[in-house]
C-alpha cells in the first residue's frame, strides 16, 4: 500500500493513455508490484479523480465494455474526423503485416503478433487499426496480464472489398496456417496418386 494517491493517479492516467486497448481495473492493478498494488477501490477513486480533472479538457475518460479509455469529446468530431478523411496515406508495411496476422490468426494477442513478426509492434499501429475499426478487442486471454485478443471486424472486410468473403470458410479456416497446410498435405498424400496422376498443376518440379 506504499504509493501515494497522486502517484497512483498518474500511473493510471498514463497507462490508460498509453494502452492501445481499453484497460480494465484488474489490468491497471497488474502494473504495480504486489507490495504496492492498490485495491480496486483505490483504482476506481483514481479514475474518478481523473474524470473530474479532465472535465474541461478535449478528451474524456469513459468506461466501455472492456475497460476504461480516453476518447476525444464528440463535439470535436467534425474537425478531428478530418484526420482520417483527408489522409489517403499509404499503409505501412508494418501495419499491413500486423493486420494480416490478425486476419489470418485471429483472435491473437499482441505478444503473439510480435512473436511472428520478430519485432515489437508499436502502439500506434494497433491504435490505428482500432481507430479504423478494422480490428477490435474480442476478449482476453486467460493468462497472467490477461492480454487483449485482437480480431478483425466487418469494416475490415469492407475496406478490403472482402464483403462476400465474410462467410467464406477459407478465410476462417486459415486460423492456423500450419495446421491447414498439414491437413491439406495429409489429404493429398492419400488422394494424389489415384486422382491426380499427370495433372498439369502438380508438374511444378
Amino acid at each position, binding site marked *: 500500500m506504499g504509493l501515494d494517491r497522486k502517484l497512483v493517479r498518474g500511473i493510471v492516467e498514463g497507462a490508460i493513455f498509453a494502452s492501445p486497448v481499453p484497460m480494465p481495473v484488474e489490468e491497471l492493478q497488474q502494473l504495480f508490484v504486489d507490495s504496492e498494488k492498490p485495491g480496486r477501490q483505490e483504482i476506481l477513486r483514481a479514475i474518478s479523480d481523473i474524470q473530474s480533472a479532465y472535465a474541461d479538457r478535449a478528451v474524456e475518460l469513459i468506461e466501455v465494455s472492456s475497460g476504461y479509455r480516453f*476518447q476525444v469529446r464528440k463535439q470535436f468530431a467534425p474537425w478531428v474526423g478530418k484526420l482520417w478523411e483527408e489522409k489517403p496515406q499509404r499503409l505501412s508495411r508494418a501495419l499491413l503485416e500486423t493486420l494480416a496476422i490478425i486476419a489470418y490468426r485471429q483472435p491473437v494477442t499482441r505478444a503473439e503478433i510480435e512473436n511472428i513478426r520478430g519485432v515489437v509492434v508499436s*502502439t500506434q499501429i494497433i491504435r490505428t487499426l482500432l481507430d479504423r475499426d478494422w480490428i477490435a478487442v474480442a476478449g482476453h486471454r486467460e493468462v497472467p496480464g490477461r492480454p487483449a485478443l485482437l480480431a478483425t471486424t466487418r469494416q475490415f472486410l469492407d475496406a478490403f472489398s472482402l464483403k462476400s468473403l465474410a462467410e467464406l470458410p477459407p478465410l476462417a479456416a486459415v486460423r492456423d496456417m500450419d495446421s491447414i497446410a498439414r491437413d491439406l498435405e495429409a489429404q493429398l498424400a492419400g488422394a494424389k496418386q489415384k486422382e491426380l496422376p499427370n495433372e498439369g498443376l502438380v508438374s511444378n518440379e
Partner: protein
Amino acid sequence: MANGVDSPGDLTAESDSDVVARVYGEALTELPEDLYIPPDALAVVLEAFEGPLDLLLYLIRKQNLDILDIPISRITDQYLAYIDLMQVLSVDLAAEYLLMAALLAEIKSRMLLPKPALSGDEEDDPRAELVRRLQEYERFKQAAEDLDALPLEGRDIFAALADAPLNIVVSEEPVFGDLPGLLDAMRDILRRADLRQSHVIASEGLTLEQRLREVIERLQDDTLVVFHELFSRQEGRMGVVVTFMAILELLKQKMISLVQESVFAPIYVRRQEPGESAWA
C-alpha cells in the same frame, strides 16, 4: 598469431610485460593480475566486446593510458593474451580479432627495430593509423551511449493517444490497401516463419501470378474441381499457401466461385459466371 613474443629490449614496455608474457600461453587458472576479470565471468565479458577496437580501448582505458601514447608492446601482449583466452574458452572469435592481432604484432616488431628500415614514409606508420581508428571508434562508442541516454519512445516514454470521438464520420472511400497488399504481407510473413523454422522448401519459380494462371487454366473447361485438388503436396507449405492466396485473389476478382453442399461437405471450385455471388 605472434605466439609468446618476448620483449626484453622494448622501448615502451613496462615491467609488467614479463607478467603478461609469462601468463600468456598458460592455462586460464593463472590469470594475469592486470586482466582483473574473474575467470568464470571471462567468457561473458569477452563476448560483450563489440570487436577488436572495443577490446583494445578497454585495455587502454583500464590502465588509464593515453590513447595517443599507447605502450604498444604491453598492449599487444595483453591483447594476444585475451585472444588466447578466448580461444581456450571457445568463444566464437570473429576474424577481425585475428587481423588485429596480426596488425599489433607487426607494429610491435617494427618498433623493436633499432631504427626505421626506411626513412621518409612515416605516413605508413601503422600505429598512427591504429590510433586514428581507435579515436574514431571511441567517438561513436560514446555517441552510442549518448543516444541510449535519450528518452526513447517505447522504453522511457509512451505515446499518449485517445480514441476518435464516437460517431466519427470516416470516409467511406476504401482509400487504403487492397487485398493483394494484405496477401503480399502474409506471404512475406510465412516465408520468414519458414526461414526461422529452418524448414527447407523448394519454392523456386513459385509465384502468385503463375499460380493464378494455373488455377484459371485448370478451370478452363468450366469443370468443378475439388478445392484440395488445386494443391500440390510436393510444393510444401509454401506452395499450399501461394495456391491458397491465388484462390482468394480469384475470389476477390470474382473470377471463380466456391460451391459447397453443406457445412462439412467438400468444397468445389468453379469458374464464376457474371453476376453470380462468390459463395453459392
